């Protein structure tokens, strides 16, 4: 069924549901405009009001007044007022009464877990595809951590770091739909601090509910080594959480966590090529030719200490097409000391059509497509024309040029030409 048929069916279905002939908005719109006219100055946006909105404003005003009175006169009201702009659910007490099934599992700790197995780790770009948004990432590795991986579903994703040598984690959970608000996620009001992440309001919690041996309730332990920070930025609900307090990550206190949170960025390619080269400790090659539709965005360094098996440099070029600037090419370079440590020498799927190409005097491989998870979480190779990859190895280095974007803008020959121009 083609696009026009689908469009026609939808139009017919909607015409049945809401006939066009019965939609008359002009009088209501005009009334709204007239209501807003008195407050408007030439050249300024209008303070517009529509009848329904006026109703809501009136209702909201009455409600606010009522709330103010309650707030000023009752303890419950004062508590309610404090709950405005809350990112953590306030627990009623320092003791958490557990549902029966959780009491059993707490007592059985150490026995066989009946929990669902954790979702598989993946790279951040893969998680972004599943979550459907560009994640905010740390521009560099926090000291003492290594990158563990990312997990995602359609509502959000989690970027996870593990303390080197174990004993701690740093999690960055991002969602477009809201925060986890389970029983265990709440905290007593006195444990919640109002803080700022940059200019944004945030809340920070130190401590956790703990079920001690022989008990059937959770008790709030303010000294538990769990630090959680929540805020909202650019439409994303973000939680950063640090677990554990081994010496290697002891430095990461509330202030450092706030600094890390403020550094989260959508643009991880913030380095100059020379800066990335200096961090990586190997000579980074740059193309002397790139397709006209691309321009240099920036470079990134990914350390063998925490994120990669080998120090890796990635150089990003974005498409110069309005609306498609986030598409483009990423050129990745990594030393290949042991082939099993090469992260850009992986196999592609059985359904992939790998093409051998010549890059100057070197053999390379070109493929169209990407690994993608299906509904059941199985990884399947999909021949998606929107992603093209060229890989080759030379002089102890592995190279990858990954192009994501409209296939008509950058073609295989362009990738090869770019590869041949590396110096």
């Amino acid at each position, binding site marked *: *069924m083609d*696009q026009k048929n*689908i*469009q026609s*069916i*939808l*139009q*017919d*279905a*909607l*015409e*049945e*549901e*809401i006939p*066009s002939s019965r*939609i*008359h*908005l*002009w009088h*209501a*719109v*005009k009334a*709204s*405009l007239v209501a*807003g006219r008195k407050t408007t100055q*030439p*050249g300024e*946006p*209008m303070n*517009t009001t*529509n009848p*329904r*909105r006026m109703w809501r404003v009136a209702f909201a005003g009455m409600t606010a007044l009522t709330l103010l009175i309650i707030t000023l006169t009752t303890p419950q009201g004062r508590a309610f007022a404090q709950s405005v702009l809350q990112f953590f659910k306030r627990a009623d007490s320092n003791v958490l009464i557990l549902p029966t099934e959780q009491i059993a599992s707490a007592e059985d700790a150490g026995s066989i877990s009946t929990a669902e197995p954790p979702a598989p780790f993946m790279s951040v770009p893969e998680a*972004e*595809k*599943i979550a*459907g*948004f*560009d994640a905010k990432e740390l521009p560099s590795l926090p000291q003492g951590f290594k990158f563990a991986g990312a997990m995602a579903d*359609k509502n959000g994703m989690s970027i996870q770091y593990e303390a080197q040598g174990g004993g701690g984690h740093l999690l960055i959970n991002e969602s*477009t*739909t809201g925060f986890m608000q389970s029983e265990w996620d709440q905290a007593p009001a006195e444990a919640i601090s109002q803080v700022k992440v940059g200019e944004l309001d945030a809340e920070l919690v130190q401590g956790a509910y703990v079920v001690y041996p022989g008990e059937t309730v959770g008790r709030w332990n303010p000294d538990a080594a769990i630090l959680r920070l929540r805020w909202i930025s650019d439409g994303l609900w973000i939680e950063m959480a640090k677990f554990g307090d081994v010496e290697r990550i002891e430095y990461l206190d509330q202030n450092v966590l706030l600094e890390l949170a403020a550094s989260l960025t959508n643009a991880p390619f913030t380095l100059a090529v020379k800066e990335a080269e200096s961090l990586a400790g190997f000579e980074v090659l740059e193309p002397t030719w790139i397709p006209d539709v691309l321009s240099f965005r920036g470079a990134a360094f990914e350390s063998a200490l925490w994120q990669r098996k080998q120090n890796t440099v990635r150089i990003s070029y974005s498409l110069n097409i*309005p*609306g*498609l600037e*986030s*598409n483009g090419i990423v050129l990745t370079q990594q030393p290949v000391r042991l082939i099993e440590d090469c992260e850009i020498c992986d196999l592609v799927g059985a359904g992939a059509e790998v093409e051998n190409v010549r890059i100057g005097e070197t053999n390379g491989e070109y493929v169209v497509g990407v690994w993608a998870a*299906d*509904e059941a979480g199985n990884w399947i190779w999909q021949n*998606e024309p*929107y*992603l093209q990859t060229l890989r080759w190895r030379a002089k102890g280095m592995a190279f990858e040029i990954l192009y*994501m*974007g*409209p296939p008509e803008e950058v073609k295989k020959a362009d990738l090869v030409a770019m590869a041949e121009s590396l110096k």
Partner: protein
Amino acid sequence: MQRVLFKGPCMEDQIAISRLKQGDWNSLEPLVNRYQARAVQAAYLILYDRSLAEDVAQTAFVKVVEYIHQYDERRPFAPWFFRIVINDALKAAQKQKRNLSLQELDESAAHLAQWLLDPAPPPESALEEKQARQHILQAIQSLPPEQRAVIVMRYYLDMSEAELSTKMERPLSSIKWWLRDARKRLRSLMDT
């Protein structure tokens, strides 16, 4: 049947907008008359609440006047306007939190979702056709609001994937994934 032209500026729209920029609010009337049905229906596909959809469309027209000074007359009006409608509908949907699970759809809805997606003979009787339309609406209702918005823009408002990418402020790759996921979800109804 009304059609929304996205491919270039519409002369009538441009005249109305020029007058609007000069402070003549009555020039909004032809824009309302031209786009009101499409705006309410598009919002309805995301919200599945007629009253709320009308509210969203009405507010979108008021916002046109509020923000007309930000509008670039060299570009067509419709995509700019429907971006307001879709964004407001999505915000309303988030408040509404009205996502039905796939399990809530019956088998006939599943069958017709497949009919929507794959070439197949059209329903033979008028009754079947009417049922088909209803089931298609139900199938779309099962998607999360953002995917509904993508379906609305792609298949109802006839926007290209590149336009979707711009309107939704998401990379084209995300749009492709959403569309694919939406199609997969609809297709998976076959197995329910």
